[in-house]
């Protein structure tokens, strides 16, 4: 089909559109790679910077950023760059894990709603409405409280607050697919449900799912940082970025600006990187550009 169409189009208009689409894809690929590299760099920093830099060094406390301590030191002389990197790692891993589980939950429930009949659909939709009717942060506080604080409570809270939107999208996607041309044709041709599911539905839903998953990460990370900042979540000896910023807040009047500015900036960069990654992966996976 594609071949016949391409030959029918005059060459003059094919070239410019191909060039545009090509550089569009290239641009998306480049940005996605850069974002991924930035994230890898942070993970590397978090793992490779030696723990010795985390040791208290009371003689070197409260120093502004310098060559030896690019993010400065805190009130115990600990290197803020190492603390931030490790804190980001914790937030990143926690957020990523929680987001992944959330996305899987969304996939399961969204698919169930779209394929298992009206009752299930109504039940899931009602559940989605329920979870969306309480502000995210309030629900996170509630769930964290229910689990007595700690990383577990935060992770479960994030899992339970982020699945609704993605579930809605997946449900809509699958419902649309079910009514589409080639699905109906496949059915009439007698193909089994499993074949339809894996052969036709999955390739269409998977990209949406992956993109949704990646885009869930920044939200999860931001929420994790927020809840930890408020005081729920990890205890202070396992720092996550939220705790680092909460402690920085206790030193604002002392003029030690590097305690708050730099870790927050690093968090912003991480979240933005994920956003870029997700958006550009979506652009790359978009069937319109894929089937040129």
């Amino acid at each position, binding site marked *: 089909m594609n071949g016949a169409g391409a030959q029918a189009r005059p060459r003059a208009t094919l070239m410019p559109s191909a060039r545009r689409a090509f550089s569009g894809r290239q641009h998306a690929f480049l940005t996605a790679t850069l974002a991924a590299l930035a994230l890898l760099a942070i993970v590397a920093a978090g793992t490779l910077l030696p723990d010795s830099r985390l040791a208290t060094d009371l003689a070197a406390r409260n120093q502004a950023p310098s060559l030896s301590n690019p993010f400065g030191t805190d009130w115990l002389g600990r290197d803020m760059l190492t603390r931030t990197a490790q804190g980001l790692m914790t937030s990143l891993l926690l957020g990523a894990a929680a987001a992944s589980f959330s996305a899987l939950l969304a996939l399961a429930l969204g698919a169930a709603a779209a394929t298992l009949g009206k009752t299930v659909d109504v039940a899931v939709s009602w559940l989605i*409405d*329920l979870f*969306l*009717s*309480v*502000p*995210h*942060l*309030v629900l996170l*506080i*509630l*769930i*964290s*409280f*229910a*689990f*007595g*604080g700690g990383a577990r409570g935060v992770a479960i809270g994030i899992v339970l607050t982020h699945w609704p939107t993605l579930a809605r999208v997946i449900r809509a996607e699958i419902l649309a697919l079910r009514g589409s041309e080639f699905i109906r044709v496949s059915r009439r041709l007698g193909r089994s449900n499993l074949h339809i599911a894996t052969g036709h539905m999955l390739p269409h839903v998977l990209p949406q799912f992956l993109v949704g998953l990646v885009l869930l990460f*920044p939200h999860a990370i*931001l929420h994790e*940082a*927020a809840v930890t*900042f*408020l*005081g*729920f979540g990890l205890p202070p000896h396992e720092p996550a970025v939220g705790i680092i*910023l909460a402690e*920085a*807040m206790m030193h*604002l*009047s002392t*003029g030690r*600006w590097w305690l*708050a*500015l730099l870790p*927050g900036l690093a*968090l*912003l960069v991480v*979240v*933005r990187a994920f*956003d870029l990654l997700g958006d550009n992966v979506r652009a790359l996976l978009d069937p319109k550009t894929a089937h040129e």
Partner: protein
Amino acid sequence: MTGWGTRMIAVLTYLASKVFRLATLLIAVCALSFWLMHVSPIDPVQAYVGADMMLVSPEQRAEIAERWGLDKPPGERFLLWTVSLAQGDLGTSMIHRQPVSTVIVERFAASLALMGTAWTLSGVFGFALGVIAARFRGTLTDRAIKWYCLTLASTPAFWLGLLLLMVFAVWLGLLPMGLASPVGVLAEDVTWLDRLRHLVLPALTLSIIGVAPIALHTRQKLIDVLASDYALFARARGESETGIIIRHGLRNVALPALTLQFASFSELFGGAVLAEQVFSYPGIGQATVQAGLHGDVPLLLGAVIFSTLFVFAGNLIADLLYRVVDPRTQAEAPA
């Protein structure tokens, strides 16, 4: 006659369905919250007594538990609680030693000033930015605005608050560090100018973040309008781009923008929680956090219910607005 009749029935059905939804929603939220608090390992008596609890005897602890009804089985507590809830009694807050309803009303009044200001500002500025971006789409201005909005969407709200605090309150000393009124001043001596000064930074924090979604949404909608047939005809007639926007575009994107604003009460509340924490602003957000940290079960339950109602109200208004918009105001209606 029959036209009015059917419309009345339609309105009543709509209202009834909404009320039913609210009722089931509240019941579900209450049950869920209550259950979550029940399974919590946090000992509310412990949380209540706090650091002084080095010095409180077991008899005293039992007395406190009894005072707050914590020694009864959960099912019974839930029933008792829903019964008193139906009578308008939300219980007494452990931290504030006052009825929960009083605390919520007081705190919400403070938050209303904050959220209302931020909501309005972010709505107005977000709308303006979105319009400008659409007008100059493709240019540097548009890209700058898009970049700004996308960066804002990745910014932790509480970090932004900390930055504003550092710059304006600590470094420049122009605005106060926090709270809602100046230190050491009797309640009746506080002027509205004082209150405004304390409101500026938290409201600014909330608004700056809130600008992003509305700007991007408005931009997209306006671009769609400007790509419509009507706009094409208008351009063909020689109208300027700005003219088209003013005469035709604005009215078609204003309502979707407003609808979006009302639909984002959930994010607004969440943002308020963070802003109030950074600025020690005594609003409902801060009360919720304190309730969660100190195990103040009645207040936390009350706050959850209240925030649900708040979000529901926003969504209801958004839904109403949407029905008003559709279908009579679609941009393609012939002249």
